[in-house]
């Protein structure tokens, strides 16, 4: 049994200044197992992975590789040992082609003198082929964020490694891509490769992993065989208390408006040259509306078009019964309509600015006084209130957002949206990377907002979330709304059906 352990970590400590990210954690990884790592946002999961990959150095502790203590000084050395890591945050070279990104490590250690672009692209195409239709010759900067995530995964799959670490790889993937990934993971595990899998989705852990280790607040809690334990136990171990992870109640009759009040949002015949056409839908008072679809279907584009963030759209939009004539996103914010981006690192947060400064960015009027100067106390107040409401784990409000864990960064992005008391919020992958407890909390906040009359539109690639949170789901396929489900019909099967291209004919039948 012991011979089977490829990686053993004991009593590892790591601090960032005053923040004690890891406080004596243990971790054991066996050959050929898929080992899940669970814990709340900021529990220290990514920090441990960065230490294993040589990006960070531990303050103290022992890392044993095949039974011998090692110190891993850099990613290069990790690579030599046979460790591969898919980062939680996408880290690709935007000016370089997809193929070169995928084979960057290989290029780095290759003893070949010359690049063979054609071979590189062919190989990239065959690897990408199983995941999605991405042209390997494209520059990464031209890819949407979800495709970038797939490139990250493809990149990891090319590594010739003994231990593969996946840090929340499915956060922005739809069911379909996720399932492909799981089958690849199982195949690799069968070949004897060990996989560390980090996710906040319990279903994924319980469907695909062999064992699970739980961290809480930088401390090791337990390691269990998945077969011997229930999802609720894992959640309880993560949070340290019993949490209610159920989705909030759906819309009640009294939440809705009488027939006389107009819908919050009324979109008619919205089109854009290339990305979508003829989009019409309404968002009723009290309702949480979902947008489902495959990667690249155009959901984000539609919503960004409504907010005037991107593209040159035509069509009519009314908010609370008044037709909108907004020309910039600034106008949209003033009208009370805000958009939470799916790409938090790219356009969601200011990484090198403080948490407080991030939260007040949407409307500085909130923290300014009449003469236009910033009231530091009000800025702190605003940030503190929202940080508490969303349960953000931080050291000081003046710390840069880059020092937060991924899930906490996402919460800052959400706090920013809530700061302006909007009338209508579009949330693109709102719980990307957020832990179970906080996720339930966010869902409750959304429902409360909807009850108080705020319009909520959620785009999510996680179907259970859509089904759990939304009252009604619109399905987008190739830039068009291909159908709508609500109530009893809101099942994963029905949504997938409407979303997938293969069943286009069926879908038309159904919506007719």
């Amino acid at each position, binding site marked *: 049994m012991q011979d089977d352990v490829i990686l053993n970590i004991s009593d590892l400590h790591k601090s960032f200044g005053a923040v004690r990210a890891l406080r004596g954690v243990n971790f054991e990884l066996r050959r050929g197992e898929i080992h899940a790592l669970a814990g709340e946002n900021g529990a220290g999961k990514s920090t441990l992975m960065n230490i294993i990959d040589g990006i960070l150095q531990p303050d103290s502790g022992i890392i044993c590789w095949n039974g011998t203590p090692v110190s891993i000084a850099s990613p290069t050395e990790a690579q030599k040992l046979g460790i591969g890591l898919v980062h939680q945050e996408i880290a690709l070279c935007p000016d370089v082609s997809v193929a070169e990104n995928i084979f960057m490590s290989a290029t780095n250690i290759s003893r070949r003198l010359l690049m063979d672009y054609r071979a590189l692209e062919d190989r990239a195409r065959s690897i990408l082929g199983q995941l999605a239709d991405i042209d390997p010759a494209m520059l990464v900067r031209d890819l949407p964020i979800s495709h970038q995530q797939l490139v990250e995964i493809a990149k990891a799959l090319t590594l010739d490694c003994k231990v593969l670490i996946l840090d929340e790889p499915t956060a922005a993937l739809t069911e379909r891509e996720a399932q492909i990934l799981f089958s690849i993971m199982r195949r690799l595990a069968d070949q004897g490769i060990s996989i560390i899998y980090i996710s906040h989705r319990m279903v994924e852990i319980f469907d695909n992993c062999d064992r699970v280790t739980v961290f809480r607040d930088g401390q090791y809690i337990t390691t269990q065989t998945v077969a011997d334990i229930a999802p609720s136990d894992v959640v309880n171990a993560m949070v340290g208390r019993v949490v209610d992870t159920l989705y909030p109640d759906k819309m009640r009759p009294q939440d809705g408006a009488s027939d006389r009040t107009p819908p919050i949002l009324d979109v008619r015949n919205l089109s854009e040259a290339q990305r979508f056409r003829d989009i019409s839908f309404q968002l009723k008072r009290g309702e949480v509306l979902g947008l489902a679809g495959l990667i690249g279907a155009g959901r984000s584009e539609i919503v960004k078009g409504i907010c005037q963030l991107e593209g040159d759209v035509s069509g009519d939009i009314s908010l609370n019964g008044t037709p909108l004539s907004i020309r910039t*996103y600034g106008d949209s914010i003033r009208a009370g309509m805000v958009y939470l981006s799916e790409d938090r690192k790219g356009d969601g947060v200011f990484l090198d600015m403080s948490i407080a400064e991030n939260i007040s960015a949407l*409307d500085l009027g909130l923290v300014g006084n009449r003469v236009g100067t910033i009231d530091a106390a009000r800025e*702190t107040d605003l940030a503190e209130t929202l940080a508490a409401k969303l349960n953000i784990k931080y050291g000081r409000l003046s710390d840069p957002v880059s020092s937060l864990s991924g899930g906490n960064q996402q919460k800052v992005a959400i706090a920013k949206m809530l700061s302006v008391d909007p009338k209508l919020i579009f949330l693109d992958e709102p719980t990307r990377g957020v832990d179970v407890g906080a996720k339930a909390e966010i869902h409750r906040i959304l429902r409360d907002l909807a009850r108080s009359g705020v319009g909520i539109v959620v785009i999510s690639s996680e179907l259970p979330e859509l089904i759990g949170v939304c009252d009604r789901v619109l399905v987008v396929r190739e830039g068009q709304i291909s159908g709508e489900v609500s109530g009893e019909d809101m099942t994963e099967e029905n949504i997938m059906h409407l979303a997938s291209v293969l069943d286009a004919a069926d879908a038309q039948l159904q919506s007719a």
Partner: protein
Amino acid sequence: MEKSINLAPPATQGMGALKKLLRMRETGLILIILALCIGMSFASPYFLTWVNIRAMVMAFAVEGIVVVGMTILLISGGIDLSVGSVTALAMVIAGWLFLQGIDPWVASLISIAACTGIGAFMGFFVTRVGLHHFIVSLAVMVIARGACLLFTGGRPIGLFTLPAEFKFIGQGAIGPIPLVIIIFLIVVLAFDFMLRRTTAFRKVFYTGSNEKAAAYSGIRTKKVIFLTTTLCSALCGVAGIIYMARFGSAQPTFGLGMELNVIAAAVIGGASLNGGSGTIFGAILGAVLLSVVSSSLALLDVSVYWQDIIRGSILLAAVSIDHYLNKRRR
């Protein structure tokens, strides 16, 4: 100081003023400058005389106004290589208009307006055409220098006949303190305050830190960049007018190489060339550092053949020490 209020975490608000000071980005630089000054006051009995201090401050005060504009531009993510030529052009236009018989105050306003126009021209190419600040301002640097030559035929314009009230801007003093220094201090304090505290200037930081995220926060980033570019040139115009009043002449070759000096001051003071961070206070400390080093070498009669080597080495050492101190403090 304002910054510490802004940045001080709740837990530390009870800390002593000293600790607050030690947290500031600028503390390292202040210490380095103090160390230099203390060393110099032993090395030369003249260093701490009022005349010497006045000469040192006068040497960077007007350029300091340009440093302010450059720092704000750098924070927004831009850069401007044309500051030297535009400053010279401001002198030349105002001087030329004055010689055509126009009232010097009106001539100055026209000249500052012209410089503002140049800034807007650059801002247009950056935000509408989509070119990089570097290349646009390089082209404008050449064009503005050419315009200086064209206005003057390459010869300095003598403006001895400028009225005394006008020359007072550059040569007068209130009590013992030259008006130039007073203007400089007002500009620095005003912009330092605005940059730290006003909502309008906060947008400059957002834009420079992550232009896309700023746009996704409803900030009209192109407008911000356009305005910072314009402001920088406008401040060059102001500086040019003060120089004209101070020197009583307009020199077409003025300000050659000024851009590197000005950018260096801002960068030493903590401004990032990638945008998103920097302070006026820090940038001015950078200018002070450069000036103190130059003045000290001149005062000590260091051989010219050694001056550049020493100057560059002190610069490198100071920046390294400052970097080290900042890293440690965090």
